[in-house]
């Protein structure tokens, strides 16, 4: 009985008894949620524009972070390092479009998916050849302290990261919704053939979308890199993006944002208020269980398009 109370009513009582502590946990959760959103967004962009699940998105995050930190270690100023790395990501987008996607127009999606697995291995290898496999510390001079508001402690670096990610996410969402190129991107995502007929060239769109995904990967790489150090395990934060995508819907930019926030918030709150009674480390699996529940009850995600086929 006591256990039952601890995992049902107990946590809510605690939340109401210590509202400030709850708020602190919640804000921490939302902050990491925004960073999940950012990674998920990279997947969504490419999925929207080509219907392909880009397996290499996680590696792109690492790849970008490694080049960025590599340039900085060589004594390049932060701004210049950012521009140089973005240049590398543009070249990568161009290469992917020219050498891979262009050859695979009109192939089944599984073929394109396999191609992105190939890209992932290639990038991982290339990054290691160029920069080596060691952990590198990334410090771009974001203040590292904490703010004390009342009894709450708010991490400054996380707040900055969340802010930047938030701005980027909103800007991209607006770009998709309100501009000609955004519309063309959505059109290509929806139907290649129809897009070609109205005069949208696939090559250009694919280059743009991989470039934007490269930019997102770079920003995500910098943020996660300065939080955890730039190391090959960064690839695995992409795994956290999967539940976010299932929650938000693979083709929805707002979905990626909300999905990230829900997962970030949910797993922190669950860890603190429930996890302590359940032996801890629930943060590890919470997201996946939530995603599983979504797959059962709402497979298209919160914002995904529900496709009803005419029979």
């Amino acid at each position, binding site marked *: 009985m006591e256990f039952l109370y601890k995992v049902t009513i107990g946590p809510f009582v605690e939340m109401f008894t210590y509202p400030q502590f709850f708020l602190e946990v919640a804000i921490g959760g939302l902050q990491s949620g925004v960073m999940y959103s950012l990674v998920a967004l990279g997947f969504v962009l490419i999925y929207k524009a080509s219907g392909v699940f880009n397996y290499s998105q996680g590696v792109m995050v690492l790849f970008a972070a490694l080049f960025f930190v590599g340039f900085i270690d060589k004594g390049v100023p932060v701004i210049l390092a950012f521009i140089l790395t973005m240049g590398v990501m543009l070249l990568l987008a161009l290469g992917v479009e020219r050498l891979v996607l262009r050859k695979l127009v009109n192939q089944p999606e599984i073929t394109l998916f396999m191609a992105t697995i190939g890209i992932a291995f290639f990038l991982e290898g290339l990054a290691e050849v160029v920069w080596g496999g060691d952990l590198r510390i990334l410090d771009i001079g974001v203040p590292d302290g904490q703010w004390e508001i009342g009894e709450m402690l708010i991490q400054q670096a996380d707040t900055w990261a969340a802010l930047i990610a938030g701005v980027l996410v909103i800007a991209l969402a607006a770009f998709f919704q309100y*501009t000609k190129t955004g519309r063309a991107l959505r059109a290509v995502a929806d*139907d290649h053939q*129809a897009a070609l*007929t*109205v005069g*949208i060239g696939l090559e250009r769109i694919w280059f743009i979308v991989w470039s934007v995904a490269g930019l997102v990967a770079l920003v995500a790489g910098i943020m996660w890199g300065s939080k955890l150090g730039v190391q090959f395990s960064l690839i695995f934060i992409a795994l956290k993006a999967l539940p976010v995508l299932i929650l938000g819907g693979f083709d929805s930019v707002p979905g990626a944002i909300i999905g990230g926030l829900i997962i970030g918030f949910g797993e922190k709150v669950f860890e603190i208020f429930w996890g302590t009674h359940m032996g801890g480390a629930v943060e590890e699996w919470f997201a996946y269980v939530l995603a599983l529940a979504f797959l059962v009850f709402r497979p298209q995600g919160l914002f995904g398009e529900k496709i009803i086929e005419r029979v």
Partner: protein
Amino acid sequence: MKERKFGEPLLTVENISLSFGGVKALQDISFDILKHEVRAIIGPNGAGKSSMLNVINGFYHPQEGSITYKGQKRSAMKPHEAARQGIARTFQNIALFRGMSTLDNIMTGRVNKMKSGLLAQALYVGPALKEEMRNREFVEHVIDFLEIQAIRKTPVGRLPYGLQKRVELGRALAAEPELLLLDEPMAGMNVEEKEDMCRFVLDVNDEFGTTIALIEHDMGVVMDISDRVVVLDYGKKLADGKPEAVRQDPVVVKAYLGEAH
């Protein structure tokens, strides 16, 4: 019916042959489409009508023959180039952007009329914003013309079939095409919807002066609205001429009704 005047040939196809492996989809097809004309391509199922349209708009590249469009002769072009050159089309089994609203779908038709750079769009400033508004105005005009104001914001995936066809026509019109290709615009429609569609086709031809090439297998509809008709069967051209003449051509009658045994 008043006398209709046509200009020079806008498009001429000469000796087009297209095959897929051993299947000969089109064999030695030649015809022309005059400016301002409503030209129909008819034939039974599997006659090669859609293949012909796909050749004109660049989805298929014929093994033999040439296409002369606006005085330029070539063996084939790419679909998005064709679109840039003023060829717009619709599909037999509707190819709309299902997740997007009617308005957005039709706006995509304007893609080649909008020139502002990526950066200007991204910043959503000055010329890019004005351009967006100007094109939006034209699209609203198309929406009024097709009488689909009520569904402007509806995702097209949710619309009934007849309306989807109309939206698809709208997207093609938004490009202000010189040549409009319609692949079975009346297929699967009820009588009332067919009448509406006929009226739109004729109005487009009249008001915008657009040259139209359309495919149908329903003879009745085609004969009423087209100026000249090409008849295909098994990838070969059977007849070409005015509807009245084609209707009475014994070869055509045979292809449609079969031979008496």
